[in-house]
């Protein structure tokens, strides 16, 4: 017993320069190599298909895909930065995210470039180039966050400040925001514009993690008895009501159903993680159903979305057009897909789905990569989720656990909502497919998520390596000795 109580003395890697201890990350390197190879092959496939479509003779020579080269270079730098920083952070998260980002880059290069045009200092950039820019910024953000963030106190201590900032952002969007398709989504401040909802989802998770970890004991152990019902302590229901109000507010003010759904689902799931009480979830679901019904009756937007979802074929050239085109795209893809660059037949020079780069990249990938590719992409998201939840399960305390779980959920649930919307499993809502959809706000917000997850995954000082070799040697010695 007394031996066990001896303080652990970890062996540390050598200090190379000024307190920095580089640490090789073999797993990350190997996975990033596969990512690079995959994307390179994808780029060749895309180039060859486009050459064939243009009537040129089919060339299978390496494509001169400059954006991809830049992207892979940035990944290499990010990896080296992680190695030099020497933190014991997760090694799977970056490659998985990088694969999703690379697929996004290939898709955006392949879509009509005219879908987006921005000019930076006299330089006119098309869809693919702008997306590359965002992806590079995202890699930078991930690297910086994962290396610099050592303490979580700035998140933990100021949760109410964060919440206030989030609500302020929401109000600002309402006052100053611009409308997109009837939803108030975009906030313009000076030269910058963006979708604040993307940042808001991260802030929400931080607040919820802080709140739930602080009040977890109370939420779990106290009851308010109302007749035969055992309800959670009423004062602590307040955040739940605030969350529902927030979700309602997003719907009412912003007409943004996807974000509202995302917030509420993530909230319920985190509540479950914190308390393990099914009562909360059931109560939340009941409120959700009641709220949805109310909104269905009150708001035309909600009603339209649900009606389109229920029977898009009723109005195939009007309201149901986009979703029907998406379903056709999935169908054309079949099991193996048409191949990168070979799908999405242009009608009058336009892709059949107008919002393909923001709302329907999943359908586009479904067509070009087929069911096989769709399953792989779903798998990639599951990997991100798994890593996040693993980090949560291994976290040293409740706040970190809830924060990690919440961040993983934000990515996973958002991917589910939009993918299910594309597949007509639930009504379509205009949120982005994390990391794949075009859009700066979305990509940077998800970069913050991944960066924070990496920082949270730091295992601290390394425990002494298990004496595996020694044990083997000892076994060997025993065996020899036994015979002798």
């Amino acid at each position: 017993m007394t031996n066990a109580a001896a303080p652990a003395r970890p062996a540390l890697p050598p200090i190379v320069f000024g307190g920095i201890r580089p640490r090789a990350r073999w797993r990350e390197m190997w996975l990033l190599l596969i990512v690079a190879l995959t994307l390179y092959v994808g780029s060749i496939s895309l180039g060859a298909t486009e050459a064939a479509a243009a009537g040129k003779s089919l060339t299978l020579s390496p494509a001169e895909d400059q954006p991809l080269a830049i992207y892979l270079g940035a990944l290499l730098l990010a990896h080296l930065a992680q190695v030099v920083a020497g933190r014991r952070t997760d090694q799977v998260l970056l490659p998985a995210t990088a694969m999703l980002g690379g697929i996004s880059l290939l898709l955006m290069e392949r879509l009509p470039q005219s879908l987006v045009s921005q000019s930076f200092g006299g330089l006119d950039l098309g869809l693919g180039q702008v997306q590359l820019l965002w992806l590079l910024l995202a890699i930078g953000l991930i690297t910086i966050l994962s290396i610099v963030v050592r303490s979580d106190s700035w998140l933990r201590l100021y949760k109410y400040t964060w919440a206030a900032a989030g609500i302020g952002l929401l109000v600002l969007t309402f006052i100053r925001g611009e409308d997109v398709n009837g939803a108030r989504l975009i906030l313009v401040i000076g030269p910058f514009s963006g979708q604040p909802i993307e940042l808001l989802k991260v802030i929400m998770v931080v607040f919820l993690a802080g709140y739930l970890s602080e009040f977890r004991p109370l939420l779990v152990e106290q009851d308010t008895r109302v007749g035969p019902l055992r309800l959670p302590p009423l004062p602590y229901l307040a955040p739940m009501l605030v969350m529902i109000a927030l979700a309602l507010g997003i719907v009412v003010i912003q007409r943004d159903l996807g974000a509202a759904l995302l917030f509420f689902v993530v909230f319920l799931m985190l509540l479950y993680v914190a308390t393990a009480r099914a009562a909360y979830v059931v109560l939340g679901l009941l409120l959700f159903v009641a709220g949805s019904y109310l909104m269905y009756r009150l708001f035309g937007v909600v009603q339209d979305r649900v009606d389109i979802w229920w029977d898009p074929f009723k109005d195939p050239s009007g309201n149901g057009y986009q979703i029907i085109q998406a379903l056709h795209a999935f169908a054309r893809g079949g099991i193996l897909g048409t191949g990168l660059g070979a799908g999405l037949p242009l009608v009058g020079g336009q892709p059949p789905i107008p919002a393909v780069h923001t709302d329907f990249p999943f359908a586009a990938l479904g067509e070009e990569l087929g069911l096989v590719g769709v399953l792989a992409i779903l798998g990639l998201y599951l990997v991100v989720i798994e890593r996040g939840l693993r980090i949560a399960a291994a976290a040293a305390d409740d706040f970190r656990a809830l924060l990690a779980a919440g961040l993983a959920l934000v990515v996973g649930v958002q991917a589910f909502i939009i993918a299910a919307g594309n597949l007509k499993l639930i009504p379509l809502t205009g949120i982005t497919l994390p990391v794949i959809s075009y859009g700066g706000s979305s990509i940077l917000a998800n970069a913050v998520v991944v960066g924070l997850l990496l920082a949270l995954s730091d295992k601290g000082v390394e425990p002494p390596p298990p004496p595996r070799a020694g044990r083997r040697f000892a076994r060997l010695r025993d065996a020899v000795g036994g015979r002798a």
Partner: protein
Amino acid sequence: MTDAGVRSSISRLRTAGLRSGRRPVGQNVGRLGVTLALAFVVLAAGAGYWQVWRAQELSTAPDDPAVVAAARHVVRGQIKDRTGTVLAASRRDANGEPYRVYTDPSMSPVIGYASRFFGTAGLEHTYDAQLTGVLSPDPVQQLLAKFQGNRADPQDLTLTISLRLQRAAQRMLGGDKGAVVMLDPSTGEVLAMVSGPTYDASAVANPATAQKAFARLQADKDKPLLNRAVQGLYVPGSTFKIVTSMAALSSGAITTSTTYPQQPRAEETGLLVSGFRVRDGHHPFTDDRALNYPEAVEVSCNIYFALTGLRTGGARLADWAGRVGFGHQIPFDLPTAVSQVTNGGGKFGGGFKDAVEVANAAYGQAEVLATPIQMALVASTVANEGVEIKPQLVKSFSSDRDGTRTVGPQQMADVLTPDVAGEIKSAMERAVEGDFGKLFTPGAAVPGIPTAGKTGTAQLAAGEPHSWFIGFAPVDHPRVAIAVIVENAGHGASRAAPMAGDLMQLYFETFGK
């Protein structure tokens, strides 16, 4: 610590454990992970549904952008009749974009049109994907098509239609509204399918004339765009007695020797069914003799069939009608209207309202409605020893790459035993060839070939009755079955029967005896 103290602390521990309160977050996270994984499995299933289960249907639908894009630029495959005469071909306009040209207006209801402005109709619609080459009829080729350079491989369609018979039928129909369906009872191949009035599909397909021509066709109150052979629902009149025969003989309600003693008298006074009189003219040649089954068919005795219908019962009548195709969409290359024996919902067996309705339905009045193709199938089923073959319009698909793929006959239903089929057959032969039959059905018999058939005179609420005939020849080994209806043309004998006789005669002239 006392024992009691330990016990109480353990029990408190247990309650605390049950409440699962301070359980580490890790376990909850695990459950959450499982939930999310299941949600993603649902996504995968959703993707599988659209990408595998519904893939073929959606990706070859005529409004799929890929099909539309292909249709605009691809030269569609040709459509030919069974002898290879081209019925639909493509030409290029000044811009080099192809458009369709159709050789014979009599084919328009069957082939339809492919227009740049108004989409597709008829076989051009059904086989859009094959004609544009997006879809190969051969599943293996369909899989391999991905690996071949030019994905669009337009298929040529060879129809089962004989242009000669088709033209003749159209000519005989003249300006009248009506329909003719001729088919081979043993293979289901449709030899002629005419719907009058027809229209000039080339005018719709030609971009120069399309707008005007289409507007005129849509405004036409004779509805030439309606294919009456498959979409027209008509009161079948006495031709429906064959369906009643199927039900009555198969169910054993009657035999061929069944007679009804009250029948001769009822011809004069009317047959009293639940206080309602079913009336029929007296058949002058039969004296006051009670008729047996073949005789009743020969002279088309309504009273006999009303009584037979009552004896068979609504449920069994509806049941056998259903077996031969009533109440269902007939699987066919063109969309078919659903034939019916009753409006349904009634409390009497089979959805009939009451006994009166059954009695009237038994000889093809009341609420009975049938498409010409349905009645042709009735004749064809009797001809083919009771086995109903699925009707088909396309004999084969062919393309340079895939070669030719022939569409074989498909059995649709086994309706009658050969014995019952034989009994109905010989009754129908008497209706055409018998001493009295000849008088009722003049001109239906093909000279030198034993012919069977049944006329119908569909009484309408207003206007002249529809003239019906269904039949087949030769009786022993039938090679052609036919259904003819001419709207408001009076008795079956006056118009439909001679037309059918001439057409069958032409069949034997064309294809040999």
